[in-house]
């Protein structure tokens, strides 16, 4: 009998939603467990870092890593898993493009630490204690991993073979990707696996109501309007990012009458998701008068959080924003 493929799953600066997404495979999990040996999965199994360190280099068939690289320990872990693995897969938005925690890149770490601390009203810390990288406590040294200057998608730290998109990837997308992985029928290195290369509108139940050319004269934030549930949300002034976003989720948010916020990220050949999404939105605003245009744009005071909610760390803005505010 040939040996089963070894799979590792690890999280960096993540929320655990990607782990839950894997558990959402439900009964298929039992099939997966039958087909592979899971050698590391901290959320569910008791293997420790030392167990992985002892494995020979290249002996793990594939490591699925979620979360971005925020502290030095994450960097150590992804580099170690890269050495131990034949294939590394970025699982989910955070490891692929930084995800929501990459909005922290709008601030430098000094600002994050000092301002967050000093402004939090519930703190009582007259002695000014703070977490230290190395600390003597009662005769013993305790160490904490410090922050890196920015949160990084894992492919800015190690070589990544494939990407599974979504915040988090759905069970179907995960299953598609695992099937491709276990059957060995993988596309060229660097590809997105598990989801198509078509925009979300293609899967959206409201797509039939969307005109060929959407034109709008006003913008609405979700709490400002009760939309007609039978009509394309974009045509109603809600910034639904479906046209710029990879399909794969089956339009879950739109089915709940909320606009797509872009968590499946860009289509193939798009390098900067937020720029693409913003330019599309600019193209559908049907106003000539500069004053009227400005008035509409003012209705969206947070373009970064709107267009780059999941992709800031992978964007051309990713590094340059840092340090602008001091």
């Amino acid at each position, binding site marked *: 009998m040939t040996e089963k493929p070894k799979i590792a799953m690890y999280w960096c*600066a993540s*929320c*655990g*939603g990607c*782990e*839950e997404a894997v*558990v*959402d495979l*439900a009964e298929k*999990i*039992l099939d997966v467990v039958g087909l592979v040996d899971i050698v590391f999965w901290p*959320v*569910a199994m*008791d293997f420790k*870092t030392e167990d992985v360190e002892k494995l020979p280099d290249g002996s793990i068939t594939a490591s699925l890593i979620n979360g971005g*690289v*925020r502290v*030095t320990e*994450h960097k150590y872990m992804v580099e170690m898993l890269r050495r131990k693995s034949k294939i590394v897969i970025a699982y989910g938005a955070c490891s692929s493009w930084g995800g929501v925690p990459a909005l*922290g890149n709008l601030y430098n770490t000094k600002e*994050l*630490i000092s*301002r*967050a*601390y*000093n402004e*939090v*009203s*519930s*703190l*009582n*810390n007259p002695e*000014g*204690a703070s*977490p*230290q990288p190395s600390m003597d*406590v*009662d005769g*013993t040294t*305790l160490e*904490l*991993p*410090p*922050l*890196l*200057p920015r949160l990084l998608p894992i492919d800015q*730290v190690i070589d990544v073979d494939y990407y599974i998109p979504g*915040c988090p990837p759905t069970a179907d997308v995960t299953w598609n990707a695992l099937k491709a992985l276990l059957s060995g029928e993988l596309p060229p290195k660097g590809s997105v696996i598990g989801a198509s290369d078509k925009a979300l509108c293609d899967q959206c139940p409201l797509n039939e109501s969307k005109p060929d050319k959407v034109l709008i004269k006003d913008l609405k934030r*979700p*709490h*400002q*309007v*009760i939309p007609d549930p039978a009509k394309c949300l974009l045509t109603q002034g809600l910034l639904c990012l479906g046209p710029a976003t990879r399909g794969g989720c089956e339009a*879950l*948010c739109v*089915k*709940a009458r909320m606009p797509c916020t872009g968590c499946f990220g860009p289509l193939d050949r798009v390098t900067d998701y937020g720029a693409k999404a913003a330019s599309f939105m600019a193209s559908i605003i049907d106003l000539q008068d500069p004053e009227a245009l400005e008035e509409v744009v003012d209705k969206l*005071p947070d373009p970064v*959080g709107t267009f780059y*909610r999941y992709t800031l760390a992978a964007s051309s803005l990713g590094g340059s924003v840092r340090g602008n505010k001091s």
Partner: protein
Amino acid sequence: MKQVVISPITRLEGHGKIVVCLDDEGNCKKAYLQVPELRGFEKFAEGRHAEDMAQITPRICGVCPTAHHMASTKTLDDLFKVEPPDAAKKIRELVYSVFMLEDHAIHFYILGGPDFIVGPTAPRAERNVVGVVNKVGKDIALKIITMRKTLRKMNETLAGRAIHPVIGLPGGVSRPVSSEEVQQLKKIGDEAVDFGRFTLKVLKDLILSNKDYVSLITSDAYTHKTYYMGLVDEKNHVNFYDGKIRIVDPNGKEYAKFDVHEYLDQLAEHVEPWTYIKFPYLKQVGWKGFTDGEDSGITSVAPLARLNAADGMATPEAQAAYEEMFKTLGGKPVHYTLANHWARVVEMIHAAERLRELANDPEIMSPEIRKLPTETPREGIGVVEAPRGTLIHHYETDERGVIRKANLMVATQHNAARIALSVDKAARSFIRGGRIDDGMLNMVEMAFRAYDPCHACGTHSLPGSMPFMIYVYDKDGNLTDTVKRNLP
């Protein structure tokens, strides 16, 4: 001093390591649970649209995203000064009940349960969900998996998504519940109550019937006498979605009962330099260090604390299970940390019964689910009971509804000090005379695992203050310089 490090600690949400310090005789002198990660949500919330917080804050924790979503949505109601229609509140609580049940189930069967169902000192490779499947058999495993899948699918429909829900808006919810969904929900409600009963039976058959386990649960190694906190309704019964915050002292006497808007008068946070997690405590009692008892402000949250802090459960079968638990364990309050596993099952029954009640409430189908806000936003505070304890959101905005300041006091933070006590005491109880094995170390991990902590939640923020140390890295992440400020 010699150290033994458990890294990473496992079967919990988020990161952590335990450092066990040994003296010359090989006895544990002290043990620390360190949380080695942080992301900075409170800071990068600034500048965001307030209504987006209901979708951004769930990314603090993908295991309990619905807790952050609801805490945020209630904070938005308060911020925009808009009262949602009754149907909207009921839909939110329905979604919340479905979530509480499946979240508690995942802990009982996957995260914490293996310690008992498979065994505290079972081999490392078997102490997990696969070991549980082998122990209970594939048929029962499939029953559990199918129930969880049904609940998750239901919330995907009702809340848009099970992981990172989207329906919450200031003044209501984005989608109504259809009559077909209600038919489905009524069926699920009955199945859910059966599932709760079944889980109580598993607890009794596999855990409580084992004398060794019971003596472990009630042993001094896993006992601390602290204050307890949780939300209660007007009858002082446990409520997950709404109510007043009630705190009882270590003798079980009511210490405080207050609206969440007074949280800053009641609660404060302490910082330790050896971990990224902060330690909330009772402000009036004060921070007295890592010690329990009436004079120490350390308070506890999550299932056992909620049951201790309330006078009972709001639903009949949960009430019966509640009474049985306290009767068996010697009356209220119960101070045994591992009794959290039992309390969690009592709460599963409560969530299932509440789900069934709401599924059978005709108002749930009302199309009146939203009220558009008309007031200018300024400040809002909201609270829910997350599976892991009391969760408070607090936002301040400008007149456009853009966040200026955010403060989040999160469930696992409230438990952090008691968890530190628990891990230290368990390590000192079990690690003696230089004898250390994997099973022993797992029994130290069981001390935190019972709380079902979520360190992703606990370190959403960036605790810390002056003085600090700055590490300078080049673009490849190599350390190039270290800058110290106000440090010797």
